[in-house]
């Protein structure tokens, strides 16, 4: 009888049922789309952060920033070339490997590893290679006449003193700059290289701690026409290219990866690292581990994924803020309004059925049975709304993924801790500061989101049923029959 009665009533009041279900559907669809977009944003941010950190890294430890004037002994790079004789058009080349940011003693890696809650650590050295290549020719002195009033100064390739003139001479050179990362080949499951996949050749072997081998990022390899089996010369050392790595998303953390010892030798930074990558034993304890490291390992800066996420700006950040702010509130408001409207419509439907319910009570139906009938009808309305909402939400999420814009994530811009890319940085997290990464907006709908939608549909039905059920339960048969007499 319950289901027969319920089915017939829903059929009879299908317009009202459709209004209630549509309201709930709208709210639920909005929740699904906003949730999916938020999830897409989170995944995009995670991809951006992974491209900096690598998979599994919970935090990095770098040397604390020093006051201005200290720790800047390196200064600007300086290249010195002897000019060639006139007619000698052979190229001259020089490169320089410069540590990016400030370095730490590699004993810091072990110190950090000793802290409570630390599962794994690995050190890495980040450097930039500046390579200058070109022709430097000497000017020729041509004897000449002394003009009245003395010599004539000049710039460029022309000048002279006395009666002689200097003609020709000058420089034509290319500057090639790329990033190089010294990775601990004995422990490759942590650190920036984990965010790339080897798409050609192989990665380092554990025994290659000081081998002259290199893994090159695919984008850089393409630009420099490097292939597996080829050679890459850095500061006079020819490295065998053993693998090509492709970043899983965004840009790679470095252009070239070499064993840590090799990087230390190239950068004249023996026993130094720029970054310690840390994996915590429990993701819930990251803040505690951060505090312990900061307390027990002096002069260090600890940066967690959350800290780094705060530095993401650009349209990705704006969209994420919109999704989590406006979108979430809009969903809550629409959903709350849908619940209230559903409740009021159900309550109003009960008012129109006073005689019916009064009669049933006169026949001996308990209040609970009448209430169950009302709640059952509202619940089915809610479930219909939920089904419509899920369909609408999935369509919306699909549309966002299919037609959504490409967002840009700008990393570290405008923040003191991560600012100053290029030479001012300190490790991949810093060296990439200020760069922009394009991320396609996706809106993945998880099973959890579907579960939430079903939960909301049931909740909506129950809220509406509670309104109507409360009215129905308070109905006294005598009052009901008197009102219609």
């Amino acid at each position, binding site marked *: 009888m319950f289901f027969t009665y319920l089915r017939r009533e829903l*059929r009879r009041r299908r317009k009202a049922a459709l209004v209630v279900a549509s309201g709930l559907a709208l709210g639920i669809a909005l929740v699904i789309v906003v949730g999916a977009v938020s999830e897409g944003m989170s995944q995009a941010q995670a991809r951006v952060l992974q491209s900096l950190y690598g998979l599994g890294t919970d935090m990095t430890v770098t040397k604390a920033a020093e006051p201005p004037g200290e720790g800047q002994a390196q200064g600007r790079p300086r290249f010195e070339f002897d000019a060639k004789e006139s007619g000698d058009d052979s190229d001259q080349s020089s490169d320089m490997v410069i540590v990016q940011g400030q370095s730490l003693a590699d004993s810091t890696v072990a110190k950090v590893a000793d802290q409570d809650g630390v599962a794994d650590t690995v050190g890495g050295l980040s450097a930039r290679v500046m390579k200058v290549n070109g022709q430097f020719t000497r000017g020729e002195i041509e004897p000449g006449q002394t003009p009245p009033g003395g010599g004539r100064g000049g710039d460029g390739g022309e000048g002279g003193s006395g009666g002689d003139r200097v003609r020709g001479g000058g420089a034509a050179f290319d500057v090639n700059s790329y990033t190089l990362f010294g990775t601990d080949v004995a422990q490759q499951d942590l650190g920036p290289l984990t965010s790339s996949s080897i798409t050609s050749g192989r990665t380092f072997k554990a025994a290659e701690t000081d081998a002259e081998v290199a893994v090159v990022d695919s984008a850089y390899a393409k630009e420099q026409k490097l292939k597996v089996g080829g050679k890459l010369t850095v500061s006079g050392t020819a490295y065998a290219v053993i693998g090509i790595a492709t970043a899983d998303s965004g840009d790679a953390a470095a252009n070239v990866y070499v064993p840590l010892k090799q990087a230390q030798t190239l950068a004249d930074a023996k026993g130094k690292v720029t970054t310690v990558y840390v994996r915590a034993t429990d993701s819930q304890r990251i803040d505690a581990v951060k505090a312990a490291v900061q307390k027990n390992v002096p002069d260090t800066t600890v940066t967690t994924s959350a800290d780094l996420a705060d530095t993401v700006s650009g349209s990705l950040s704006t969209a994420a803020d919109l999704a989590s702010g406006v979108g979430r509130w809009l969903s809550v408001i629409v959903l709350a309004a849908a619940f209230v409207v559903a409740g009021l419509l159900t309550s109003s439907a009960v008012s129109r059925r006073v005689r019916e319910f009064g009669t049933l009570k006169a*026949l001996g139906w308990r209040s609970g049975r009448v209430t169950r009938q009302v709640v059952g009808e509202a619940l089915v309305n809610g479930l219909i709304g939920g089904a419509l909402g899920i369909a609408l939400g999935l369509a919306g999420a699909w549309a966002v993924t299919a037609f959504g814009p490409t967002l840009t994530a700008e990393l570290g811009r405008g923040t003191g801790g991560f600012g100053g890319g290029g030479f001012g940085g300190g490790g991949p997290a810093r060296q990439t500061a200020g760069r922009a990464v394009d991320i396609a907006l996706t809106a993945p709908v998880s099973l959890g989101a579907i579960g939430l939608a079903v939960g909301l549909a049931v909740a909506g039905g129950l809220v509406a049923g509670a309104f109507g059920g409360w009215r129905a339960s308070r109905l006294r048969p005598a009052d009901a*029959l008197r009102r219609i007499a």
Partner: protein
Amino acid sequence: MYQLSGVTKRYRRGKATVQALDGVDLAIEDGGRLVIQGPTGGGKSTLLQMLGGLDRPDSGSVLLDGVDLATLPESRLTRVRAEKIGFVFQGFNLVPTLTAQENVETALVPLGLRPRERRERAGEVLASVGLGERRGHLPGELSGGQQQRVAIARALVKSPAVLLADEPTGNLDESTRDEIMDLLETLWEDNGLTFVMVTHDTALARRAPRLATIRKGRVTIREQVAGRG
């Protein structure tokens, strides 16, 4: 069957207080038949609701087979209504979305019968009121007289001890009225029911052996020689 003593009921209508029943004493024997008459607002329906356990008096007692309906907990009162009392209303009060058969079954739902038994009993009673062929029809597809027959079947399907009818022919034309009254009287005689009916219709009132006239909440009983038609 019924023993009412000093039953009083007031209720508010706007700012005014209406004295619907004013110290009513009334006895109705088992299997008896009583017609209640009186002017509009005189308290007829209120008295019927007291007898049916649909409302409680402000004071006094309403004994049904020795049980005071005035003080009975709500759950037990609901049970008494479900088992012992059948109602027939002037407006039929059928659930519009349920068929004639399903409407009759609603009276058996509180008794916890199995669906099959419910269907069988409802079918039998509908056949007994001449609607065996119309059991699958919705109320909207039936005439007024047929709808009232369904309502009577619904009242009788649980084999109640008491049948309470509030203006059961008020919405029917004259020929249908007589048809329904004949049916009710036959059922009363055949089933040994206690039958109480409220009506404005003097012709119908004359057909009952006892007539209770209610004015300003006070009841006067008159025994009369009853006759059909």
